[in-house]
């Protein structure tokens, strides 16, 4: 059910340094805001797991489609989280709930998404979760996500978090460029458009379908270069930016594929150029 470009998992969660102020380890408090919010997240993911476990046993396509109409919705759990957040706005544990709400709503966005981002920007811009949120937002098609990242980039006190925001803006541009190219080359544009609108909303679709992927890649390059120039001290993000720049410059559509020299599964040498003269589907895969 995922859109084809939404498969990536984020490998860029930056290793996070300890807070500069040493403090005694916090004892878990079962009645605490942090724990209550974490419990809501667990509750919802358990409901989802059960739902998809049952789905696996359904054989016919028609029954599957009918079943999926009752896919668990986060809305009810998000309301519960808001209740706790509103009662305890100054509790540092609130970030756990905001982080989760953002993860649940980053596409197609909406009022919960925007409100959660605003609160993070106001009170948690230097928290370790801010970095995680930035990485996640590169997959969001929503303008508020971009605005949030720019706020973090200009205002966070911590270099790791600014680096993460900068890298995520680059990632956002690149993901959009890839989506635009994918859409333009897709065989069944109508089906793709319907799926896109369903998961990400009409507004995001209109914007995507008019966007220029080459310009988006130029923009992505600019932010990745900034990561390397300004945030060279943050090794994980620099490495990520270097990889992304290599991809933009050497692996975009229309570029000559770089040579690959490696070993095949029998440990014999194999090269990509062994297949020159043929149309090649190169499939990065794993059996797991």
């Amino acid at each position, binding site marked *: 059910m995922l859109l*084809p*470009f939404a*498969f*990536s*998992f*984020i*490998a*860029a969660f930056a290793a996070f340094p300890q807070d500069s102020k040493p403090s005694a380890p916090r004892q878990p408090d079962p009645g605490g805001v942090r724990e209550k919010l974490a419990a809501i997240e667990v509750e919802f993911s358990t409901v989802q797991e059960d739902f998809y476990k049952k789905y696996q046993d359904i054989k016919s396509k028609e029954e599957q489609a009918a079943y999926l109409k009752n896919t668990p919705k986060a809305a009810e759990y998000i309301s519960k989280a808001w209740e706790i957040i509103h009662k305890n706005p100054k509790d540092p544990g609130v970030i756990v709930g905001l982080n989760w709400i953002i993860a649940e709503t980053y596409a197609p966005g909406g009022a919960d998404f925007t409100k959660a981002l605003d609160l993070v920007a106001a009170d948690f811009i230097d928290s370790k979760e801010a970095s995680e949120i930035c990485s996640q937002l590169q997959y969001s098609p929503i303008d508020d996500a971009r605005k949030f990242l720019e706020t973090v980039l200009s205002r966070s006190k911590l270099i790791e978090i600014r680096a993460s925001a900068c890298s995520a803006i680059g990632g956002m541009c690149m993901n959009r460029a*890839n989506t635009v*190219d*994918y859409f333009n*080359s*897709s*065989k*069944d544009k109508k089906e793709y458009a319907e799926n896109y609108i369903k998961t990400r909303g009409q507004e995001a679709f209109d914007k995507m379908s008019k966007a220029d992927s080459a310009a988006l890649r130029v923009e992505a390059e600019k932010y990745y270069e900034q990561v390397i120039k300004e945030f060279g001290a943050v090794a994980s993000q620099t490495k990520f930016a270097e*990889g*992304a720049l*290599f*991809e933009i410059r050497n*692996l*975009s*559509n*229309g*570029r*000559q*594929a*770089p040579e*690959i020299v*490696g*070993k*095949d*599964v*029998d*440990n014999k040498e*194999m090269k*990509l*150029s062994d*297949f*020159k*003269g*043929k*149309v*090649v*589907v*190169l*499939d*990065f*895969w*794993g*059996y*797991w």
Partner: protein
Amino acid sequence: MLPHERSLVKRMEGKPFALVGMNSDSDRAKLKETMAKENITWPSFFDGGGTSGPIATKWNVHGWPTIYVIDHKGVIRYKNVREKAMDAAVDKLIAEMEAEKSSK
């Protein structure tokens, strides 16, 4: 993925086409067993036994599967096309190649 790939390879038999895997599994011996069991007949690189192998790293691959479709001149033409879209991309590039040959 696999059923579609098997049928694509079968459909392209005798055509100038190759499906080339870049595998990121950890255990080569186990992988060979899997390939026999799953009837994976096409060639695959073995990328050093993990998801952070040298080639996946260089190609900036963070999600699996990641697909590149490369034409007969070695130019990258499509990315991450699946199923029907992959078939369409391959058919188009094969047709391009044949048109080029016959115009020579």
